[in-house]
């Protein structure tokens, strides 16, 4: 099968979950003998196209409007058209619509009329104009889109909200099938207006875990890891407040625990956020280490040294890659008990959940993890493309677009 796989961003130097999902899927499909061309959208690329030889990846200059996710430059259509025509794929599989452009499905249908167009949904950008996080500007979790409510949340007109949603829903009709990596996200998109029969739950492919031989925890401190971009939605401030709480109320615990904070990107969210995080960091003792950005290839090493992964996101999440990777590396997870996180951390054999945004609840969970016996993680992640290939085949060679 010839498969064009489109990642909404170039996954270097720092890859997000959606980019890693596309990379892992490409590797899994290639390992089964399929011809895969990976393409990544790069807003601001000097030329129309480029080529990343190290990763065998076509780069396409492709950028979208911040809310409607249609191309900022309609001429982008011709670039994609040429690429699709020359590769002649059986499947065009898009990971995300931001940067890639909601019109890409239309252009793919024109350039390769017999190809099937699949779109894996990441985040809730089509549903939520507030950064696609379904987290209101007043700091509340949001349960669904409503024109007036959304307009007031982001300070725009109901007309603008209705226009963006309608345009996306129209362009999404060119997609043959949507993939929801979590059941939670699937339901949100159904609530928004996608027909249930057009959206299928298929977990992301996760890289094979590294073989891990872990030293018994009794002979060493328990190591917690936080691995994420440092956006406000990922709850780094909640974690740091929880660690402060432990230092103040349970200082003896800090002798038995180590916390590694991985990730970067704090500067992208303004000076107020940077100041807040810097302030919280400054009071913490040496049991907490800030280790900076990490590459996907490093994750095996990181999990090999970890006893627990902490995922304190304050938004719903979709299917956090960090949880999947952690569980498949047999590292249990402490996660906020909502959305895609609660869906994955759904029993004591996978870890424990706590109230999102509550530092005391997280501190309590950390203290509980210090005292608890080691958890034997039971989890099998999708490490091959079986589910994706089944979906591709189910669409048949000449199925019409479900409009």
């Amino acid at each position, binding site marked *: 099968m010839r498969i064009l796989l489109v990642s909404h961003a170039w996954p270097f130097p720092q890859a997000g979950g959606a980019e890693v999902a596309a990379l892992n899927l490409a590797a899994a499909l290639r390992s089964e003998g399929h011809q895969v061309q990976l393409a990544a959208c790069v807003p601001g690329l000097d030329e129309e196209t480029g080529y990343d030889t190290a990763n065998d990846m076509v780069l396409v200059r492709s950028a979208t409007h911040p809310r409607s996710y249609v191309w900022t430059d309609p001429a982008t*259509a011709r670039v994609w058209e040429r690429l699709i025509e020359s590769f002649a794929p059986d499947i065009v599989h898009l990971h995300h619509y931001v940067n890639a452009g909601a019109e890409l499905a*239309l252009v793919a249908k024109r350039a390769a009329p017999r190809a099937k167009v699949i779109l894996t949904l990441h985040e809730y950008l089509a549903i939520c104009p507030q950064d696609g996080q379904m987290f209101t500007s007043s700091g509340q979790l949001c349960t669904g889109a409503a024109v007036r409510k959304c307009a007031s949340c982001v300070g725009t007109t109901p007309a603008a909200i*209705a*226009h963006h949603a*309608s*345009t996306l829903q129209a362009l999404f*009709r060119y997609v043959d099938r949507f993939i929801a990596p979590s059941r939670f996200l699937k339901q949100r998109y159904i609530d928004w*207006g996608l027909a249930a029969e057009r959206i299928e739950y298929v977990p992301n492919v996760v890289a094979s875990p590294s073989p891990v031989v872990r030293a018994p925890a009794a002979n060493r401190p328990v190591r917690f890891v936080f691995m994420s971009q440092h956006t406000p939605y990922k709850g780094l401030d909640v974690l740091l407040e929880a660690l402060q709480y432990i230092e103040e109320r349970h200082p003896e615990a800090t002798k038995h625990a180590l916390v590694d904070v991985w990730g970067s990107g704090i500067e992208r969210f303004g000076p107020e956020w940077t100041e807040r995080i810097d302030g919280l960091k400054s009071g913490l003792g040496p049991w907490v280490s800030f280790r900076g950005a990490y590459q996907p290839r490093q994750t095996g090493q990181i999990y090999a040294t970890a006893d627990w992964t902490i995922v304190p996101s304050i938004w719903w999440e979709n299917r956090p890659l960090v949880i999947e990777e952690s569980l498949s590396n047999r590292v249990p997870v402490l996660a906020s008990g909502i959305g895609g996180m609660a869906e994955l951390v759904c029993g004591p054999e996978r870890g424990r959940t706590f109230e999102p945004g509550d530092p005391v609840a997280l501190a309590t969970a950390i203290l509980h993890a210090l005292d608890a016996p080691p958890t034997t993680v039971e989890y099998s992640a999708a490490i091959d493309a079986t589910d994706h290939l089944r979906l591709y085949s189910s669409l048949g060679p000449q199925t019409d677009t479900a409009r």
Partner: protein
Amino acid sequence: MGGAKVLINKVARRVGRARDRLTGRVAPRLSIDHGFTLDGAIFAIGWHEAPDMTVRAGRSRRNLETLRVLRFHRPDLIPMLGPNNLAGFAAISANSSSASNTADIVVRIGTGTTRTFTQRRPALVAPYETIVDIAERLIASGALDRQSAVRVLVLPALRHRVAAQRANSAPTVCKYRAGHYPESCALNVVVPFYGSFGFAQNILAVLSLISGRDLEGGLAVTFVCDDPRMESNFVDFVRSQNESVNRLPLAVYSHPINRGFAAACNTGAAATRGAVTIFLNSDVIASGPETLVRLAQTVAGDPTIAAASPTLLFPDGMLQARELVTFENPLFPGFTLLEPPCKGLHITGTFPDVEDADLLPGAMLAVRTAAFDQVGGFSLDFGSGDFEDAELCTRLRALGRLVVINATALHLEGHSYQRKVLEVLARAEIFRELCSR
């Protein structure tokens, strides 16, 4: 103060003469009907015998009267002018020839356009928008009641503007035509644009979804730019978007001046021969083509139907309009207005697939093109904005049924065109006149 005293005496003498004119003892040159003070200025509204414009009535020739609003920047005289002191206003106006007391003529509107005699084209000094603005201020100040403001100021000004729009003979130009834009088709979708084209991408995306299976006989899309201010950007955007992404059988026509919604619709309808024409406001948005297709199929499939419209909704799903009915709004006594019943209410029940309607709103209006041509298209008497859809329906009604179908479209009412109450009322007057013919 001495100068002011002399002037006041002068004014007092003139008051007597003005009264004589008003009572007919002296041949009137300027008769003042209304006077008021506002923002430190004195306004006088009245009829003026214009020496530069003549009319012929039978064998005799006479000067044409024009309506004038005069403004005097004389705050020192304001205390002399009590309420309803028309004689005082008349005196000040009569004194306007003196160098110290010259009036701005803020409005000069010719009248007699409906009279039987010929005349030179009357002059319009103030722009239409200014006149509407003045009328609003007159009402706010209590100087004029709404009915008088509409009938004395806004309506003549509107008629003047419409006449000027019609008199402009600059041709409509086709600015873009895709190679496969057809000479004839099953459906011509006409979209007039004015002010902005922010929703054009939605329209193009939705129309791209109409396939040959949906519509035997083919589609044409006709955009009409009725706003020369945005023409260049609009045409560039549409050309680029269509050639790169949508590839629709699309043409863009442009008016050299703003001629209004009705004229833009007529231009679009004449661009190609469609069995059915759908007039689509640029601020109607949809997530799919089903409503457009059903409208076209409904009109094409039943020869008894002349026009059809869907249920229009507000963006939040509330009912906006299924049909229009005429009614007397107690807030505006003396005017017959249009109203969609149940506007703003939540829809809890279901509607019939096809239901006969009184009059249809024009935001997404499908018409049998032959019937549209037979009645002569949209009336251009309204200028822009309101009532032309309902008025068209009153004529189409003679040729077939008007129906509303059980399909919906979101209409972002007011995004494409902002109305002022006085303009609506003036158009209501035109609607009443046209319907009574």
